[in-house]
């Protein structure tokens, strides 16, 4: 039985929840069990946003976690607060375009990715979260790249369909983690 | 031989349980007769309040349900959603409507619920035996204002018709009185207009019927009629507050 526990944190508007939902959706397409749990609270914009995703071959127990196989942090407060959550030997992905401080722990694997800078280079500042998603999927293999591709086509329809190319390009950017 | 008087089919054969001189019987009958005349007894659904009229369904020959204290306009809103073409009405006293049920009546009126509310205002709680109501007049003695209501202690009595007149979707509002044959005839016309407003789906219709409670006022039935005319009407003026063009006579 294999279970992967993921945690995503950043500020509202960084596409934190979307990353989590896309992984969950992809897991469903692969016939795996999955749960997505957002934090919920009174702040609507600019506040902290985080979510938990569990992907498993067996039914998922509690959707809330205290230790993650991989943690994505998109801003500095999230790094400070959630670095301890990475399990020993686990993975921490840091958005170094915004986070100007290194990770403290040495018992985990750290990937530093300046996702906002990359997004700017790609010509679309909004696709930073897709760059991060691509790195996460390649580094963990929690779901297949193909499943994410299907999710994009199912999620972004109508007006939003024109974003697919930019999103896929961003998602494919970090090939070295394959 | 031509009968000069027959019972309305709108009332059951059960004797009402109201006190002598109480005008609930008159109010029931005006509603019942009106529905009979409109041919709508079988197409009406009423909501009885908490108060002396909680058992109005024993006397009025229409389908009815009871409601928790003050909630009749919410209950009627629910009924009307299921049966948009039936005539749905609430029958509520002043404690029920103007005190505990203030939220429900104001919002039903604001939403323009296509229901009728018949508001029995007798300036006192009847069923619980004579406590101060939100409509109790200044100086009026009740079991919870034993020296007479004062503005300092309890504020001023609420004029519901005037209050609801501020709401755009409360399209028909009239205050009538049940203290004289002429006023009762006028009251019946108001009841009829209220149902016509609903039939035409124009919005919320509200008739305030100034009524008596000789038992809790501590007066005779005759003096109660006089008190209504002398004390209540000056503070609660009769008249039409809102009247849509479609039903103007």
């Amino acid at each position: 039985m294999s279970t992967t526990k993921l945690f995503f944190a950043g500020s509202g508007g960084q596409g934190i929840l979307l990353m989590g939902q896309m992984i969950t959706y992809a897991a469903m397409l692969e016939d795996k069990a999955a749960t997505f749990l957002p934090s919920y609270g009174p702040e609507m914009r600019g506040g902290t946003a985080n979510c938990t995703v569990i992907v498993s071959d067996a039914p998922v127990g509690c959707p809330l976690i205290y230790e993650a196989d991989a943690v994505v942090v998109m801003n500095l407060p999230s790094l400070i607060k959630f670095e301890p959550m990475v399990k020993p030997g686990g993975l921490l992905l840091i958005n170094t375009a915004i986070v100007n401080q290194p990770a403290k722990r040495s018992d985990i694997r750290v990937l530093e990715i300046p996702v906002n800078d990359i997004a700017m280079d790609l010509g679309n500042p909004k696709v930073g979260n897709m760059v991060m998603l691509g790195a996460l999927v390649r580094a963990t293999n929690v779901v297949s790249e193909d499943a994410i591709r299907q999710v994009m086509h199912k999620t972004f329809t109508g007006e939003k369909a024109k974003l697919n190319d930019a999103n896929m390009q961003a998602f494919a950017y970090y090939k070295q983690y394959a | 031989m031509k009968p000069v008087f027959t019972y309305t089919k709108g009332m059951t054969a059960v004797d009402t349980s109201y006190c002598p001189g109480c005008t609930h019987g008159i109010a029931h009958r005006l509603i019942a007769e009106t529905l009979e005349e409109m041919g709508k007894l079988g197409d009406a659904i009423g909501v009885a309040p908490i108060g002396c009229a909680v058992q109005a369904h024993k006397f009025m020959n229409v389908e009815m349900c009871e409601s928790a204290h003050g909630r009749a306009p919410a209950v009627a809103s629910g009924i009307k959603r299921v049966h948009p073409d039936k005539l749905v009405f609430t029958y509520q006293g002043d404690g029920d409507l103007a005190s505990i049920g203030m939220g429900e009546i104001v919002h039903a009126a604001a939403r323009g619920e296509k229901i009728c509310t018949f508001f029995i205002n007798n300036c006192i709680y009847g069923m619980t035996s004579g406590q101060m109501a939100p409509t109790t007049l200044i100086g009026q003695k009740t079991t919870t204002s034993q020296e007479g209501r004062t503005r300092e202690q309890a504020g001023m009595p609420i004029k519901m018709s005037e209050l609801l007149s501020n709401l755009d979707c409360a399209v028909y509002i009239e205050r009538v009185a049940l203290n004289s044959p002429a006023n009762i005839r006028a009251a019946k016309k108001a009841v009829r207009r209220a149902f016509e407003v609903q039939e035409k789906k124009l919005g919320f219709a509200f008739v305030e019927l100034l009524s008596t409670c000789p038992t809790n006022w501590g007066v005779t039935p005759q003096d109660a009629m006089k008190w209504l005319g002398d004390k209540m009407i000056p503070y609660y003026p009769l008249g039409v507050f809102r009247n849509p063009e479609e039903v103007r006579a």
Partner: protein
Amino acid sequence: MTEKVLMKGNEAFAEAAIRGGARFYFGYPITPQSEIPEYLSRELPRRGGTFLQAESELGAVNMAYGAAAAGGDVFLSSSSPGIALMQEGMSFLCSSEVPVVILNVSRGGPGIGGIQPGQADYFQATRGGGNGDYKLIVFAPASVQEAIDLIYEAVPLANAWQNPVFILADGILGQMMEPVRLPEPRPFLEEKDIRAKKPWALTGYGGDDSGRRIVKSLRMQPDELEAHVEKLFRKYERAQKELCRYESVGIEDADIVFVAFGTVSRIARESIDLLAAQGIKAGLIRPISLWPFPYAAFDALGKKTKLVISAELSMGQLIEDVKLGVNGRYPVALIHRTGGMLPTSVEVADKARQLYQDIIKG
């Protein structure tokens, strides 16, 4: 079977209510269930149903009572403090035998409490938060899929029993997303068919007043009221025989038996695995019906069991029913968090092991 979709709990609950046949919804915004009125305000009118935002939860429950008394199939939802405000209506619905499906996406209390998940509304749901002798039929789902299935089933079930059916979920189930399959929609009950399907409902008697219907709960004569309550309780007695539901996992030869419902039962399942790795065999009784409570489930416990543990998100409410079910046969202990906190599976397993070892040592 429909295809799998990924849905947020609250939206899935709302969709399940529509598919179950609930044509009418009355509600008021409250966290963590506001996605339900939002979803239904959009979807119900599109599909021939009615959404009405009430002025308060008091308004909502009374609109529900009116619509259901008039024969409509009604869904109502709120969260803990809002459910508290609806208790007047619950008592009314039960006494008048008017069926409504009610969902509590519960949060921590007392008072305004918090907005994180809680189970401290257990007494309110199972003991009756309103006045008088009455019972709600109460189910507690542990997953979004189970909540969908229970809500879908609750619409006909409430009608069959002429009683409110109450679904006690929690904030986590409402906010989380899980892949689910939605059931096929049932057609809405049309106004013209109400009279035949629900002969007790208010529709106006038409031409013949001999069948005039009254929906009421007032009975001024004590003997008449007593007879009415006794009649209700004969129905509840039948419900106790027919509606008890639970799931049990490895309880026959368990050293420790957990009792937990909803989200906590998912934590307990993980704790069972953790304890197994330490050589302690633990099992689980998961009540699905909280009222009627599946007391008989405890009769399956064997000689090997040393301890029964009620695990819950309250200061100890479920444990009262656990003690009634155990009936003195085994020691009963409590593992809990409250205020919106959840215990981890490690925390539950550690505490359970300590309690167990204390008993073994005597």
